[in-house]
């Protein structure tokens, strides 16, 4: 034999390290980056692309950025290379606007308190090993109403007009309201769609398919321009409330489809077992079917929520000032003209952080479900 290999007694061959070209840095490079001519080309292309994009971007965003200045000109003057850096001073100076919108200054403690309460409400929803979670969940269910009272006022608090809401506050209001109210409505719609009774089924199908068939923006237009026509004469409805109703109905239709998928995944045996125990329709669903179906649907539900959260930006088209709207409005300020990139990157980062964490959470749940379910 050409290669001289040491002979070992049968059954006593030791574990040898693999050839050096197979492992370590070399092996990794060979298998991951240069396994074929095509891959070599691909790798070089990507390296070139990253090299042309990342260093200048980093320079613009970090090295050459300015954090304190009062005008765009001042910003540029402070840069090592003029006009070639991010002027974060612009965002920093308007951060209050981005967070609170035009909420009256002296009352902003109420917004801050709501943010804190929101965090307290989210924790038990996300984390199922919390001691006393049951009571915490009741609090979470009550949270939208508590926060609503804190923010709008009345009943002892100074009332605040909803058209002063804006920025991240507005995003959170629409997002949280949409999320908390669309879930129960969506579940009801899903049950209705699977009902054996013709009339509720047809109604639910019509509603779900109608909502899913039209863009959200048309529903927001309806909310903004003509919802009042359908209400008894003289009723005046706040625009924010109208938007909240539409957003809730919109995402409820999508939730309904996700939950329907979960219901379909429940084996027939579960329904038969519930029937044989003599449970009524509602008992069977509340105690046996829904808990299982919802558990399966959670990743889909979270994905729907991510979509809803991103869709809150659409309200700027009907003139409400969410972070993107605030940013657009700020761009018109003559002192800060032409800093669109800073605004878009800031708003994009805000949404990315929120949505990416939600999607990671959904992934974590999905993995947990995959290991936990073995039937």
């Amino acid at each position: 034999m050409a290669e001289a290999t040491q002979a070992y007694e049968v059954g006593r061959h030791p574990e040898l390290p693999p050839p050096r070209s197979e492992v370590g840095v070399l092996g990794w490079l060979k298998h991951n980056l240069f396994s074929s001519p095509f891959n070599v080309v691909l790798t070089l292309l990507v390296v070139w692309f990253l090299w042309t994009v990342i260093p200048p971007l980093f320079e613009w965003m970090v090295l050459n950025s300015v954090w304190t200045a009062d005008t765009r000109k001042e910003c540029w003057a402070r840069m090592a290379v003029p006009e070639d850096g991010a002027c974060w001073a612009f965002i920093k100076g308007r951060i209050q606007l981005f967070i609170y919108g035009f909420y009256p200054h002296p009352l902003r403690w109420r917004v801050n308190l709501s943010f804190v309460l929101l965090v307290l409400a989210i924790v038990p929803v996300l984390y199922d090993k919390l001691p006393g979670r049951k009571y915490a969940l009741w609090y979470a269910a009550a949270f939208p109403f508590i926060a609503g009272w804190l923010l709008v006022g009345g009943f002892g608090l100074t009332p605040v007009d909803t058209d002063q809401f804006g920025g991240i506050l507005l995003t959170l209001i629409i997002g949280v309201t949409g999320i908390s109210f669309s879930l129960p409505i969506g579940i009801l719609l899903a049950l209705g769609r699977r009902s054996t009774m013709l009339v509720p089924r047809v109604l639910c199908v019509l509603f779900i398919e109608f909502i899913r068939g039209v863009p959200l923006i048309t529903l927001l237009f309806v909310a903004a321009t003509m919802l009042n026509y359908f209400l008894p004469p003289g009723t005046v409805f706040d625009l924010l409330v109208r938007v909240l109703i539409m957003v809730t109905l919109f995402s409820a239709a999508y939730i309904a489809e996700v939950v329907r998928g979960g219901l379909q995944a429940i084996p027939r045996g579960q329904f038969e077992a519930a029937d044989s125990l003599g449970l009524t329709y509602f008992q069977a669903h509340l105690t046996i079917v829904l808990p299982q179906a919802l558990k399966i649907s959670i990743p889909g539900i979270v994905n729907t929520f991510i979509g809803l959260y991103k869709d809150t930006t659409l309200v700027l088209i009907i003139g409400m000032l969410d972070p993107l709207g605030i940013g657009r409005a700020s761009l018109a300020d003559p002192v800060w003209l032409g800093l669109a990139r800073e605004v878009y990157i800031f708003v994009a980062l805000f949404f990315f952080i929120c949505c990416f964490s939600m999607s990671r959470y959904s992934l974590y749940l999905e993995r947990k479900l995959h290991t936990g379910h073995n039937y």
Partner: protein
Amino acid sequence: MAVVTGTGSDTRNPIARLWGNKKARSVIVQIVTMAVVFGVLALLYRNVVVNLAAIGKEFSFDFLNAPSAYDITFSPFIEYNSRSTHLRAAAVGILNTLLVASCGIVLATVMGFIMGVLRLSKNWLVNRTVYCFLEFTRNVPVLLHILFIHGLVVTQLPVPKQAMNFADSFFLTNRGFFFPAPVPEAGFWIVATVFAISVVFVIAFGRWAKKVQDETGRTYPVFWISTGAIVAATAVAFLAAGMPLSWEAPALKGFNFKGGVAIKPEFIALWLALSYYTSCFIAEIVRAGILAVSYGQTEAAYAVGLRPNRTLQLIIIPQALRVIVPPLASQYLNLTKNSSLAIAIGYMDVVATIGGISLMQTGKEMETMMIVMLTYLVFSLIIAGFMNWYNKKMALVER
């Protein structure tokens, strides 16, 4: 009416007995639901009538035949000016929606498939780079992407006077992308006819090649032969007919380019943003679809001697498509619906024309919004119909 409720000696009152019967209960519930729904609808109808009367409006579609009195700068398919009717404005809007949606669908599909396949690559660097792009893009609202790209086009590209000039015929400016328009001259019909004939020939050739394979087992590189035949035949005809095609190059006149084909910045922004945003979701769908085909299928195909490209064509793609197509169709629908965000940057789609300016000018909120919603519902129905057909056709036969 005798309702049998199992035991004969039921002493409850008739209504309670009726309620105890499952079928009767179902009928009662349905009648009540129906009554409530009709009641609510009637109430809403009454409210609308009263409210409209109070402000002196009436519900009618007559306004559609009135002149719109506004301009639409982007109407590539039909003639339109400010004397045209609202109906025509709606048609322009619908066509523009269809245009940006179909262009978006094509680009999003191409980008999505490429990125989905790259995500499966063993090349770590490529895989991670694509992953980062996907995660970032799809976790940021599509409206922001649209505004951002529009902003880039409008503010970062040069004014027409300093246009980015490619070979004196392609110009990239903040007013849009301009390139030469083909102008057919006398005799161009020959080229067109030859092209059409070669397409027919190629279709026939494909069928013939299949038949030959069935009969003799010989295979032809059908794709290359077809492409070659079409290109060669058309080129020969083009030269033989004396190149009956001239190009109308765009030229700078005053502050903007005139002539040639102009693609507006609004269209570019909407098209690109919708495409790459949707392509991120398509990439995930494609990746999942390919992963859904177990590696054992590839191994089995290799083991019987199939080459990797044939394995892909005969084994992997047909199976992956079953998984990919249904969610893909719903992404197409999403893209179409998201194209309604056109209004944010002033692209004249159906929401911006009939649902925007026409609504403002005529005050016909109900009527215009009904037209807009109906448009999207029809799109949805078409795509849903296709999906049902495909699912039925493709369902794997199981026991």
